[in-house]
């Protein structure tokens, strides 16, 4: 966590040239630059600067955008809803597709079903998010005219308006994730299915679903959950692209805009928010192991 903070802080200071000069812009006089430097505390020693910045971050103050003059934390708060909605939808879709896919592939290992799932996984890994996005737009909105091309309607306006705009983005975002989770589920299930207690369960007359879900999936869940956590990184990078393609006003779009405008405080803020949530999610997953597998203790 501290390393993340140090890294994000040094972003502004590693940048070539004087941050104050960048902020002031091309037409600024040297007095302007001096004034901005004073205002941002850039003339103080580096360690003091870091201390001030870190203290502010802990209190939720991420600085002020160079471009819009709004507080960064406020900008992030405004943009967080679409991103959360998108990632949650996409997560729900992917998990409800990927886990059954992986289970069936493992159960029918070696058959055409298994090969189909594995082929899908390879393709899912290979097709970049924005290519998938544009193909979906072409097929579902332009040819079939089923869904809106782009845009976002908040969930507070009702599900009927929210969902049509959400389907394509969440599918786009989900495909890589589906590929990843399906592959891991299959691998993990294969390992478990060769164990003795699976044969015992079958021998005592349990139905196939009972064996697969109650006995096998439960024991195969730790690696799957780990992969879900690591896959969040894929989701985050996908969000940046997906929001750009579908014109969703979320954090990903904010990141891209901030980069194009070289709005360093906003870039710092967004990278910090994404990284901290990634770390926190993975922490939560580490803790969840104790519930999934009572043998693991901390």
């Amino acid at each position, binding site marked *: *966590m*501290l*390393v*993340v903070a*140090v*890294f994000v802080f040094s*972003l502004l200071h*590693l*940048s*070539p040239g004087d941050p104050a000069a960048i902020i002031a812009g091309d037409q600024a006089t040297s007095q302007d630059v001096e004034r901005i430097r004073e205002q941002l505390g850039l003339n103080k020693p580096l360690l003091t600067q870091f201390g001030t910045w870190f203290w502010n971050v802990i209190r939720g103050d991420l600085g002020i955008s160079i471009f819009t003059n709004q507080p960064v934390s406020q900008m992030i708060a405004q943009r967080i809803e679409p991103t959360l909605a998108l990632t949650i939808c996409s997560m729900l879709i992917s998990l409800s597709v990927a886990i059954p896919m992986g289970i069936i592939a493992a159960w029918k290992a070696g058959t055409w079903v298994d090969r189909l799932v594995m082929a899908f996984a*390879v*393709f899912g*890994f*290979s*097709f*970049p*998010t*924005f*290519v998938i996005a*544009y*193909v979906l*737009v*072409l097929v579902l909105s*332009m040819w079939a005219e089923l869904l809106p*091309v782009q845009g976002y309607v908040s969930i507070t306006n009702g599900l009927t308006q929210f969902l049509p705009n959400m389907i394509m983005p969440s599918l786009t975002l989900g495909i890589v994730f589906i590929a990843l989770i399906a*592959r891991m589920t299959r*691998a993990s299930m294969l*390992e478990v299915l060769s164990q003795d207690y699976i044969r015992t369960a079958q021998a005592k007359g349990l139905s196939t679903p009972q064996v697969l879900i109650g006995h096998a999936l439960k024991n195969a869940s730790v690696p799957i959950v780990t992969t879900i956590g690591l896959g*969040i*990184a*894929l989701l*985050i*990078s996908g969000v*940046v*692209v997906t929001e*750009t*393609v579908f014109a969703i006003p979320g954090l990903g779009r904010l*990141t*891209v805009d901030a*980069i*194009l405008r*070289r709005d*360093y405080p906003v*870039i710092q803020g967004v*990278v910090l928010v*994404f*990284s901290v949530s*990634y*770390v926190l999610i*993975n922490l939560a997953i580490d803790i969840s192991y104790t519930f999934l597998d009572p043998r693991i203790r901390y």
Partner: protein
Amino acid sequence: MTVVSFDSAVDANVAVTWRAALRDIWRRHPTAVIGGVLLLLILLMAIFAPLLTSIEPNALRPVRRLRWPSAEHWFGTDSIGRDIYSRVLYGARVSLLVGASVAVLSTLIGLTIGLLSGFHRAVDAIVMRIMDGVMSIPPILLAIALMALTKASIQNVIIAITIAEIPRVSRLVRGIVLSLREQPFVEAARAIGTRSWRIMVRHILPNTVAPLIVQATYICASAIITEAILSFLGAGTPPNIPSWGNIIAEGRTYFLVSAYIILIPGVFLSVTVLAVNLVGDGLRDVLDPRMARRM
């Protein structure tokens, strides 16, 4: 007479074994062979781009803008009349260059870091904490952030993606070193008084090669995608260099009328990444059977 026939018999034998070997590879790893052939085609396309097209990739002909694919412009033209066919050919150079450079650089640097930290506990404690920190930032975000700091250039794209990939390689190598360090053959080498660096080079290093080659192909695939994403977002290869991500980014505004501007480079990008991944899977099956069984 006899000598001549003996020679030709040897020749025939060599030919037969070669053909048999190829058929054997094809039978056992058909997808890897397909991937390899595709990759070779794309590589040839990138190398011989100037011979395959007579049109400059940056030549503007505003009169002929947004033309759909035709005999004259095989893949159509973009919004300022540049020929997409030749831009796609030249774009292959960027993708392959970035993919290969990132794969080689991050593997070499990651290998060094991984070996050192696997062997020295003091180095390990410091380096791995830093790596953990870097890893907690999603790779694309890290690459974007690094690109925001520097001028857009292919070189900087390569550096940014390499930095984002290093932690994964060094973790892999460190894991291998840690498990090998306890193996009897390393203990034996130590017992007869072999120096640390010699154990590292002669006994540990050769064992990391196979998994690293496999890992390098996957890094190559992901680097190609990352470059395209960076360029697509406007934080990658500078716009004056035709890269697949740039062509797609420039076609974004015109997608509803001229979908081909995005779809054609998109297909090339996907096929290239797929080919690299298929080769990687094949290599993994051959070089790293333990991992292959797991996946």
